[in-house]
């Protein structure tokens, strides 16, 4: 019986990486929980409320999408729609081509990772440079991010210093401050030379058409201060109904993501720069990306579209903490990824094991700032995987055929209950069932009690 892919990955994971990921995620989780409980009278009510608002948005996208489109246009932005990832990439390319633009600076956006924008643009000779420090390091290493908020949670300073040396960013130096200063010096000239700044959006207010982008490093601000054209990639589910709702969501997002009260930069963008402002984009494009989100919307897992990509479920998940992000073979790791990745995949079957890589402990649901019932959704997807007979949906699961036969046949069941007593006397290591051996290696079976209930029922009838 082959182990499930996540287990296979973990078996090869260096102990140092596992420790680093464990400590970082645990630390952030504990800090954010303490902060929420200390600072708010009823933090739990906040996340339930946020969940209700986002669920409302998801279930009313048919009304809100045309409304926000009209607002954005009235604000002077150009609105585009992309049904697929490739169409979104092509739309970006065409906008750049129309301006004769060849250089892009990118702020962190998960959608751009999802649609592999940088690779697409490279093929056309367009430089699409990541500017978030972690994402920049991921890019020069031809790696992929392993956490929604902390892309290089899996790397240490020595590896980063080697990468910087290799890329000609100075002699080997693994001091984090030196690394940061070197990135600052290198990237600011890239910002100033870029034709286009690309961002995502954490939220878009339907009421005002404001895009909200949050960062700590200031890279998205630089992308919107130096270049003359702004392109925003926005998943169709990113809307909130009213500006005032932003007060709720910002409070929850930032605490959940990094245990801060507020990010350093929280930017509200409702169009190209003001005419009196010398810096910033004269042209603004918003690309609404579907890329299978409408399929998710049609499914019984639509609650996952509430997600605000804070990473809190990753930080609390006992599986993520041991496995780290690359174990999920997807842009979106952790509990949210185990739901979203199979649904967004071209073929569900290729990611059908992810919903199973979970002990259904429910911690993710409790941590989620928009109260997504992640364990329920994971169970639905397990069911879907089994019904579709996806091979990966059963990876690492002992065959249950014998059990099914036994449990559906009363006389075999009775015999088994009687014979089960043998388990108390036979040494477990000698039972020639690999699953049994693996199970008992770390656990002690209690004394056999099978048949007790039947005896009790029988005696009860007599008396």
């Amino acid at each position, binding site marked *: 019986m082959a182990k499930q892919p996540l287990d296979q990955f973990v078996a090869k994971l260096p102990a140092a990486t596992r420790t680093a990921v464990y400590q970082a995620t645990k630390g952030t989780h504990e800090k954010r929980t303490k902060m929420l409980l200390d600072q708010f009278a009823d933090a739990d*009510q906040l996340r339930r409320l946020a969940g*209700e608002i986002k669920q*409302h948005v998801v279930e009313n996208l048919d009304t809100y999408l045309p409304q926000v489109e009209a607002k954005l246009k009235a604000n002077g932005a150009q609105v585009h729609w992309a049904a697929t990832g490739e169409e979104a990439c092509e739309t970006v390319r065409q906008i750049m081509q129309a301006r004769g633009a060849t250089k892009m600076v990118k702020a962190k956006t998960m959608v751009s990772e999802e649609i592999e924008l940088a690779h697409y643009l490279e093929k056309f000779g367009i430089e699409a440079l990541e500017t978030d420090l972690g994402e920049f390091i991921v890019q020069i290493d031809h790696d992929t991010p392993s956490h929604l908020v902390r892309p290089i949670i899996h790397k240490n300073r020595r590896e980063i210093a080697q990468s910087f040396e290799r890329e000609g960013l100075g002699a080997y130096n693994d001091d984090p401050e030196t690394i940061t200063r070197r990135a600052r010096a290198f990237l*600011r000239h890239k910002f100033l030379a870029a034709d286009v700044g690309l961002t995502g959006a954490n939220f878009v207010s339907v009421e005002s058409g404001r895009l909200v982008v949050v960062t700590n490093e200031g890279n998205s*601000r630089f992308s919107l201060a130096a270049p003359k054209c702004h392109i925003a990639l926005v998943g169709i589910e990113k809307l909130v109904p009213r500006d005032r709702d932003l007060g709720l969501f910002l409070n929850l997002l930032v605490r959940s993501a990094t245990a801060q*009260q507020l990010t*350093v930069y*929280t930017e509200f963008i409702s169009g190209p720069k*003001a005419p009196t*402002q010398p810096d910033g984009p004269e042209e603004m494009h918003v690309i609404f990306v579907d890329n299978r989100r409408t399929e998710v919307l049609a499914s019984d897992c639509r609650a996952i579209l509430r997600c605000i990509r804070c990473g809190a479920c990753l930080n609390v998940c006992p599986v993520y903490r041991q496995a780290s992000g690359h174990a999920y073979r997807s842009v979106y790791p952790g509990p949210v990824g185990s739901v979203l990745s199979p649904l967004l995949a071209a073929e569900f079957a290729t990611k059908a094991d992810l919903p199973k890589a979970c002990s259904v402990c429910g911690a993710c649901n409790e941590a989620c700032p928009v109260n997504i019932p992640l364990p329920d959704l994971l169970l639905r997807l397990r069911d879907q995987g089994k019904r579709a007979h996806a091979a990966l949906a059963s990876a690492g699961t002992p065959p249950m055929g014998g059990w099914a036969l036994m449990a559906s046949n009363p006389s075999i069941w009775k015999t088994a209950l009687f014979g089960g007593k043998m388990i108390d006397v036979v040494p477990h290591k000698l039972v020639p069932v690999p699953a049994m051996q693996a199970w008992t290696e770390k656990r002690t079976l209690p004394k056999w009690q099978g048949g007790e209930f039947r005896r009790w029922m029988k005696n009860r009838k007599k008396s």
Partner: protein
Amino acid sequence: MSDSREQILNRVRTALAPLTERAPLPDWDRDLVVLREARAVTDLWAHFAARLKAVSGTPFATVAELVAYLDQNNWRHGYCDPALWPQLQSAFPASFTVETEFDRTRVDDYAFGITAATGAIAETGTLVLSDRGTSRRLAALAPWVHIAALRREQIFADLPAAVAALPADPNVIWVTGPSKTADVEGILIEGVHGPGRQIALLLG
């Protein structure tokens, strides 16, 4: 691309059609998200200054204090919003070079940038900048030190108040302390792409 618009909106409508009822939009009380400690604040500047310090920013209540700080650190070349310069100029000694034009071809020449804030949030130690109120986006971002000049009556008590007062400006940015990252091994480093020092200057 208009085909894609119709295609996406059709898919959305089809996906939602089977729902017999849609989740309602709940209303909520702004006080829910106001921090316990921010509720009883009377001196907004004092609270703002304390919160700014908590996010490693620096508040100054007088221009003289600011000038002394810059002088001590050898930050003597900078930019100032031309609208603010007349009222600040007299406090800066001749050893300072202050330009009222920001030249983007030599961003690293400016050790500091002084621009106007259009607001502040006491609860979070946040400065509010906007396109119409702040002379240059780059001057508030590229120099190592950013100084936002603020008037007492511009300070909002809490975050919901600042959201409610978002101006009709195409770009508003809330700045809460110096630019920072914890990407390398979770170690906090200030001054990534934006300022390493964030200062609020009270003008009165």
